[in-house]
């Protein structure tokens, strides 16, 4: 007995000195807010080539040609954040930290919706708590119910007093519960509006949510970056400047803003760089840069513009996006509200990126933009929202809802032959999932649509 117990003491050294078994709520909040912004970037980095904001400088690049790619890292990061949020919600619930709980629910809803919008059916109900090692896939439209329910719960939790207020560990709002609630309503409006092509679309419900949403650009949900960790789009621009090529602008985006399809847009000069000759020249997606050299002859992201400032923000959900949602939802209910929201959306985005007031007015006064309520169409909303949502992954949801019908929008060159001459409608399930949870992974093609796109 003595022998056994002394031996046990000698061998009792297996407590991990490197990793703690508990995480503080603040630590989970910090990582979840930061990684949510990163996920918006990670997803936008892929979808920006699909919606032709960006184009690869190399011909037939898989990013442009809509090839079947395995986005294992994105998948891991989306589920990584959702796992941490799951833990944060459970721990907050235990300790009565209802603001942490509410913010967790809102971020969980956002990350889940990004996942569903990209992949369709995905695991959720059997996820995170290790009930099974092969979680089943839930239906995409059922998961939307979950998204909306999480947002409602978040609103309730954040509307009450809390024993433990959130503080600077929250990279989005620094613990401002009121703005978290507005953020939840804005997201509610976004996801209800995704249903525009389905029978269950309820534009009135979208407008109701918007009424409780953001009141101005100051409410925008965004994460500003750090001296220690630069904004990821700034990183793309700096790397490109150092000839690690990336962030080249698609000819589609140039033509949408340089006046080819209408009025010249002052935002062009604030969002992308010019060539050495001061020109704005894009690359045709899938075609590559042709005989152009690596620098100076095409427009690219350049450092220190609005989206590429080292300590600048990654935009998660914004007032201007909300305005375009409002314009779309109100279009058949109250056209003058719709038109006003459209004008406000353009204005909010222009102010956000720093267009001088005079130029904003000039732009809005041009007949192609300020066409008046009567001539105003749904196409105008989508075209203007396309410019405002630059680099944001929501643009790919819009493109699919709009069937990629933007003016001048063509299939990329060297299109993936599996697509039979059509645009991509979803991501393939990543290789990691296919090899680890293969029995449950649905058999889908890149042309199979997410439920709201059917």
């Amino acid at each position: 007995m003595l022998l056994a117990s002394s031996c046990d003491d000698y061998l009792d050294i297996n407590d991990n000195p490197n990793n703690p078994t508990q995480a503080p709520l603040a630590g989970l909040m910090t990582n979840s807010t930061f990684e949510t912004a990163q996920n918006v970037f990670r997803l936008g980095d892929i979808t920006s080539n699909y919606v032709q904001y960006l184009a690869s400088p190399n011909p037939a690049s898989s990013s442009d040609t809509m090839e079947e790619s395995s986005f294992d890292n994105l998948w891991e990061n989306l589920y990584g954040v959702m796992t941490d949020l799951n833990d944060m919600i459970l721990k907050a619930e235990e300790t009565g930290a209802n603001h942490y709980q509410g913010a967790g629910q809102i971020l969980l809803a956002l990350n889940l919706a990004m996942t569903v919008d990209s992949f369709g059916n995905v695991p959720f109900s059997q996820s995170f708590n290790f009930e099974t090692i092969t979680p089943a896939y839930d239906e995409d439209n059922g998961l939307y119910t979950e998204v909306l329910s999480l947002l409602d719960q978040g609103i309730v939790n954040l509307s009450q007093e809390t024993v433990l207020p959130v503080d600077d560990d929250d990279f989005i709002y620094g613990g401002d519960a009121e703005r978290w609630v507005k953020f939840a309503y804005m997201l509610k409006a976004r996801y209800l509006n995704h249903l525009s092509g389905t029978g269950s679309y309820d534009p009135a419900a979208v407008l109701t949510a918007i009424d409780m949403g953001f009141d101005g650009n100051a409410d925008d949900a965004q994460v500003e970056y750090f001296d220690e960790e630069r904004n990821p789009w700034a990183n793309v621009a700096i790397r490109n400047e150092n000839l690690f090529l990336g962030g080249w602008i698609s000819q589609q985006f140039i033509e949408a803003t340089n006046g080819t399809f209408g009025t010249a847009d002052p935002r062009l000069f604030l969002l992308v760089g010019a060539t050495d000759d001061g020109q704005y020249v894009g690359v045709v997606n899938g075609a590559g840069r042709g005989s152009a050299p690596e620098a100076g002859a095409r427009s690219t992201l350049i450092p220190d513009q609005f989206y590429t400032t080292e300590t600048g923000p990654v935009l998660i959900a914004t007032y201007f996006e909300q305005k375009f949602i409002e314009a779309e939802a109100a279009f058949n209910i109250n056209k003058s509200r719709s038109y006003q929201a459209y004008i406000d959306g353009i204005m909010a985005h222009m102010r956000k990126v720093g267009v001088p007031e005079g130029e904003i007015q000039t732009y809005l006064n041009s007949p192609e933009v300020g066409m008046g309520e009567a001539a105003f169409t749904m196409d105008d909303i989508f075209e203007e929202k396309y410019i405002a949502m630059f680099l944001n992954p929501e643009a790919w949801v819009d493109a699919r809802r709009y069937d990629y019908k933007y003016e001048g929008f063509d299939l990329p060159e060297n299109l993936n032959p599996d697509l039979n001459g059509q645009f991509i409608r979803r991501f393939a399930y990543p290789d990691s999932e296919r090899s680890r949870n293969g029995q449950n992974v649905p058999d889908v093609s890149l042309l199979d649509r997410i439920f709201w796109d059917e």
Partner: protein
Amino acid sequence: MKNKIILLVILVLFQVSAIFAQQRNITGQVTSAEDDMTLPGVNVIVKGTNQGTVTDMDGNYTLSVPQGATLVFSFIGFGNREVKVTDQLVINVTLIEDLEDLDEVVVTSFGIERETKALGYAVQEINAEDISRTKQQNVVSALQGQAAGVQVTNSGGAPGQSARIIIRGVNSLDPNADNQPLFVIDGVPIDNSTIESGGTPRGLSNRAADLNPNDIESMNILKGAAATALYGVRAANGAVIITTKKGKEGVVRVNVSSSVGFEKVNQYPKFQEVYGQGFGGVYDPDSFWPNWGPSMDDIRQIDPNAQFYDIWRDAMRTGTQYDNSFNISGGNKNANFYTSISNLDQEGIIPFSNWGRTSARLNGELRLNERFIVAANISYVVSGGNRVPHDRFMERLVYNTPNADINDYINEDGTMKSRGGNTNPIYDARFSTFKDEVNRITGNLRFTYNVSDWMNLNYLIGTDYYSDSRTSITPGPLGIEGEQPLSSTGFITETRINSRDLNSNLFVTINKDWNEKLNTTLRLGNDVFERDSERVDATGTDFVIPQFYDLSYASQISNSQDKRKKRLVGVYGDLTVDYADMLFLNVTARNDWTSTLPIGNNSFFYPSVNLGFVFTEAFKSPDFFTFGKIRASYAEVGKDTDPYLIGQTYTSPDIYPLGGQVGFTRFGQFGDLNLKPERTTAIELGTDLRFFENRLGLDVTWYKSNSKDQIIPVPVSNTTGFTTFITNAGEIENSGVEMILRATPIKNEDFRWDLTFNASYNKNEIVSIREGIEQIELGNQFGYSGSRAYMILTEGEAYGNLYGTSYQRFGASEDGTHLNEDLPIVIGADGFPVRNTDLLILGNSTPKWIGGMSNNFRYKAFDFSFLIDFRAGVDQYNQYDMFFAAFGISERTLDRNETRVFEGVLADGTPNTKEVWLGQGTGPDGQNYGAGFYRNTYRRLTENFIQDAAFIKLRNITLGYNFQDNILGVVEFVKSARLSVAANNIILYTPWDGFDPESFSAGAGGNATGFSGLGYPGVQSVFFTFTVGF
């Protein structure tokens, strides 16, 4: 607990110390029967004890011996003799020369010497000459092809790069488990781990590479569980028992050896040399694409000065190697010593890759009195070099244009010359450095106390301490207009690894001769092992002053720290019974306690039994049948795991702190709270047959081992909230046959030919995994657009299966798991083959057959030898070939502008007749073929790159000349001199198209050997060596 054991032993000691047998001094001389020459250095041991001596320069010995004891005389190259001590005081012995030594002595557990004939299991010895002859600087590589059932694979050709050794197949399914045997030097285990670089592979060393091969006297390979039961969990995969050289009684001997070697790539893939830079057949000297342009003829119409360089051969160098070593040894009756110093400097074939090793060793033994012997061994090694990122180097060669000189890589201002935006690999190799320096001390003390003639006490304590300092630098921009820097920020990473192993082993041996025929030996012991290691990484990014690389002058710093400690305690017993030199029985039992498993599950007991029967002693056999033995064994071994695997934890990612906040995330690994030890059960049957006075010998072994309750980090879906789940899952079965054939076809005064052939066949099966888990992904390697290759464990299938996408086959079963290559390929309506994106089994990366053949010839003063080794029944993922197809580099892509009808059938089963063009863009038929066949189809199918990786190699060929007395007589003090020339890997015969298939990117520490990666190319080498003895 350890103290308890010591106490117990001391009590026993006191009780028995009263009983002293009568001792007497025996003297004598040992001579050779053939020529009556005296034999110095002969081992004289009192049978069943560690008590003994060696003969002096004149073959004389003196030994205090209890009455009734038996003296065993043994000497390499001679048969053993046993002489019973009755009442004589002088015992002169003649030994008979016998290179095929019947009673050869092998070193088994804890440095215990045992006669081979007494063993009930297979052991194979490799001697000093076999090791030094290979000129391999890594002792693991030196074993290649020399032992049956032992698979040694170099992970690549980099200086100092790790080599992996696997005995009788893989026992643990865990992709990170060390399936390699335990390395034991002079009775004390040492660390042979390989710590690869994070990020891009750089081919670091396995720690046994720190050993100077010239210090080794012999290596014994203990293959089965039976042989290793006494080392416990750490030897669950077998053991390599290394004995270093000792001084011999007599005059001081000095040996100096110098060698110089040169090496180059032994095999290149087949490249196309027709098409140059550009895409879609359009020439573009700035294109990212190196080889999708027009033919060189067309390019010269545009640019008459354009040239086609073989950048692959141009980028490589001739490697060099200088090896100098020096040793002194000597001794007298009561003490002996051996000391050595060596230095090795090696430059690799990839520019700027190098490695070196400087070692010093002191071995000594002191006999304090008749009963008490103290021995000590200590070595100090400094090793390390600049580790070029071979994977990145080779990948960048893929992207670089053949239309520019790859060696023209730097501008006058120090910036890189880049083409098509691609990094020049030589510039990167030169400036992105990764240097490691290992300072290592291994040492042990051994105390032997002969309590009486039938009992002795041994205590061994050893330590293996090393510090591994690594500095990795990637420069940022130099601040020169228009430069393409290697990194937009630049960074420095300082890594410090400290590791200390402590081993303590106390055992008592009790020997009893019951009568003339029956002898028993009982050994009881306790051993304790502790490994304490720590790693600190500090990374500084964005240098304030370009080219001033110091953590203090970096804009951002991030750190990480990892501490690990593990303890193991074991008690064991070992009983051997010998009857009439005919029947040998050995029973062992052991219990281990480990710190790495949950208390309650951390104690495990395992027994073994083995039996040897020399039937030629028992029955009358024909004269030509010199010796015959059959043997059988049954053994169990337990196996624990790494520290800190149990339960769920959180971690703070390296990126924090940010804005004064520290973020937390759930750690991706979850360890089963009820984790228990793995268990291996092994049975072995074998026979050892010798004929014609040992001129011919055959040793055959059959074995089967089952390892169950495997501790595996099962990669799980990220959607579970974890990435890996560590649990007991699964059982693997290895079975196989090993055969060793030894022959001396010619033997006369001037000429002698010895031949050894070994071959082994191994078959394994994953018997079961675990309820709820059908497959476990062991690892995967990148392939473009669906051509990734996977190693996946599937119940009922073999270990090492490679999975991936394939050509759709007509009539293939929907739920088939194996690719059926005999079925016709399905061709789509567009005329191109259809891809099957389901992952099917495309091959297996575990060799079915391995083996080798060594031939030694001696003619007068000359000796000549060669060693061939082979492996068969093995496939690997050829990642090079995948890149070469995607970038139009392989010879195969020469048909890029041809039109063809793919052989196969349409979806309805009718033959395909549609003619298609393989090229890019618009074909002769006016159709747009996009990026062309190779990019649209060929590169996207794993099947195309799972290839037969079998080989036959002429591993080594050596010609030596030993200077004879008539020459040596000129310089009086020179006792021996030898000149030799050796060549390694000069013949490689393989169906594999690529660099040497003996390469894998995981390094020796990993089990994902199915992926060739962009490995450091294998090399062939030639060495010139001069050795002088004084």
